[in-house]
């Protein structure tokens, strides 16, 4: 909002004060994320800028914390870096293992959440859907109900999932299946919200047009509906993946030692012996989130263009 020409001096002062306030709030929002990036290259095990770092002395910077991400947990980290070293790193390094777990769990949780969520969003978009509002409220609630309550309930349920019908079929705690199910459930609200958003303003007559031109339901879905809602589906999938990739409480409650994920490792690191290695992981995660954010923004603009929505 440019200052109008009729503004009096007091308004001018207030206008510049307002700009300063906004700048400060933007700094508050962004500085915590930016400050860890240089600190992760700290040569010293401190969480503050050393004098060498401030004078841009190359000696003040190092990649040691990134290297430690690979070596911590290895059986023989000091041998020359050949194929044995890499095999050892791939199999044993704690952070590498955690990353593998995070990707595996995140991947399957995303597939499950996106598949079920997209179908459900298509059903919910139909105004004839019975109990639409109630069903929507139930499907969104995993986002609203505190995670600690969900994790507590899942812990009870997973310890004997067949107990309700009087059977005993083992436990779901400490299994990948259990975690994938938990994370998929947490991601579903995001899929529903993003796909429903793409479906608002979706021209239902396009479906009828396709049908009247002789397309069967499958062709209609893949050739007409899917291309239009795809941006929403992908954003939803990304949200679901990020939710799983960033989730720690369900992992704390339900995972065994074999299912440690990156957030779980970070949690340990923050609670116990905080080392700058955490900052190295954090920096990598920030880079990933920048990539994800750009993808989602591009998709959103594409979706708006496709649906003929202008502006934001």
């Amino acid at each position, binding site marked *: 909002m440019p200052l109008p020409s009729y503004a009096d001096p007091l308004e001018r002062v207030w206008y510049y004060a307002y700009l300063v306030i906004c700048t400060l*709030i933007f700094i508050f929002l962004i500085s915590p994320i930016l400050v860890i990036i240089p600190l992760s290259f700290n040569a010293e095990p401190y969480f503050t800028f050393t004098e060498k770092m401030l004078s841009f002395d190359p000696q003040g910077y190092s990649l040691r914390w990134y290297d430690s991400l690979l070596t911590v947990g290895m059986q023989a980290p000091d041998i020359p870096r050949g194929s044995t070293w890499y095999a050892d790193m791939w199999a044993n390094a704690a952070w590498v293992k955690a990353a593998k777990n995070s990707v595996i769990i995140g991947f399957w949780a995303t597939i499950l959440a996106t598949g079920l969520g997209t179908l459900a969003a298509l*059903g919910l978009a139909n105004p004839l*859907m019975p109990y639409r509002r109630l069903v929507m409220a139930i499907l969104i609630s995993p986002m609203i109900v505190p995670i600690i309550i969900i994790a507590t309930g899942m812990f009870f349920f997973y310890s004997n999932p067949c107990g309700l019908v009087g059977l005993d079929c083992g436990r779901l705690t400490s299994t990948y299946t259990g975690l994938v199910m938990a994370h998929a459930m947490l991601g579903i609200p995001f899929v529903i919200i993003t796909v429903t958003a793409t479906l608002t303003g979706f021209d239902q007559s396009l479906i009828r047009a396709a049908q009247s031109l002789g397309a069967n339901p499958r062709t209609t879905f893949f050739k007409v509906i899917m291309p239009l809602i795809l941006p929403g589906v992908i954003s939803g999938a990304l949200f679901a993946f990020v939710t799983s990739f960033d989730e720690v409480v369900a992992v704390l409650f339900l995972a065994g030692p074999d299912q440690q994920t990156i957030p779980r490792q970070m949690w340990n690191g923050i609670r116990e012996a905080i080392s700058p290695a955490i900052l190295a992981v954090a920096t990598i995660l920030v880079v990933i989130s920048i990539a994800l954010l750009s993808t989602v923004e591009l998709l959103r603009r594409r979706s708006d263009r496709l649906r003929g929505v202008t502006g934001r």
Partner: protein
Amino acid sequence: MTAAHQTLTTADGRPLKAALVRAQRRARRRAFLLVAPLLVFVLLTFVIPIGQILYRSVHHDGFSANAPAVSEWFAATAPGTEPDEAAFAALAADFKAMQAARTAGVAATRVNYTLPESRSLFTKTARSADDLVPPYREAFLAIDAKWASPAVWQAMRSSSSAYTGDFYLASADFERAEDGSIHRVEETQRIYVQLYLKTFALSALITVICLLLAFPVAHLLATLPMAKANLLMILVLLPFWTSLLVRTTSWIVLLQSQGVINSALVAMGVIGDDGRLPMIYNQAGTIIVMTHILLPFMILPLYSVMRVIPPGYARAARSLGATSWTTFRRIYLPLTLPGMGAGAMLVFILAVGYYITPALVGGADGQLFSNMIQFHMSKSNWSMAAALSSLLLVGVLILYWLYDKLIGIDNLKLG
């Protein structure tokens, strides 16, 4: 004229009304079938676990299932009845069975909820279950004099039924006296109600801070030209997309006593080296970090409302003689109310249930209600955790229902 009385029919001759009803029914069924798989999945992974919490908050058969004989005696006698020889005999039989099945610990766990520190009494008695010979009363007293205490018997009495409201009593800082009456616990031991209120108060404070910080930013974004606004929007969305643990770590790095802000202040000479500000691992830490994490949830709904307010309204007010303050107060502010409401409710709901941030940066006095639930879970006090979870759940669901009534979940947007 006759055409008006004829029923309309479809091409193949069926009445149009019936055909329409059928088509609608089919559409309804198809919509439901699309939703059904997800509904089943959410039922399994979300609704049933929540149901189990509610069930566990009123049900614990640890004592009643493992000490059936004495439970029966309790059922047959009135509250406050002095335990007679029959009661002690029943208890002795139960203890022998429990010692054989090694379940005294389970029963003790239940009694322990009502009367803390009775676990040792149970395990000790179970170990010497073989010494329990008639006369039973004397045999019990020989093992531990506490068996004469009415408090122990009252605790066993309230444990003797599988369904109980005791966990809710405890979570409301009430306890049962020896004669079965209900009264509040000692003032120094009242923790739950206070924590519940503190969680709501802190959440309200965080919501207000978020609103104050979000308003100018959302206004700036809404009034800037689109290209600039989109660029600045990245500064809002990047924190939104960044891992919660990353943001919490960053704040620890910034705020801790050897951290960036304190070091900078010391280097600039604002504070002495021994006067480093305690900004983290306390309530202040919880407030700062949670405000940062929840701020985008306030900015985004505010922004989407402010974006569509026509700037002509403010200009019209000014041209009619209103001062800039009056224009803001009477014209602009009321128009932003829906956005403020949506953002404030969302932030408040999310803040009330927050766990991770208080656990990592809250220290001793920055813990919220969720952390108490986790504390009981870690101590295997599952019934207490379930009762506290149910209370928190009720609070959140009321807010969620209000949100749906006032704003509508359909209007929930991300980014």
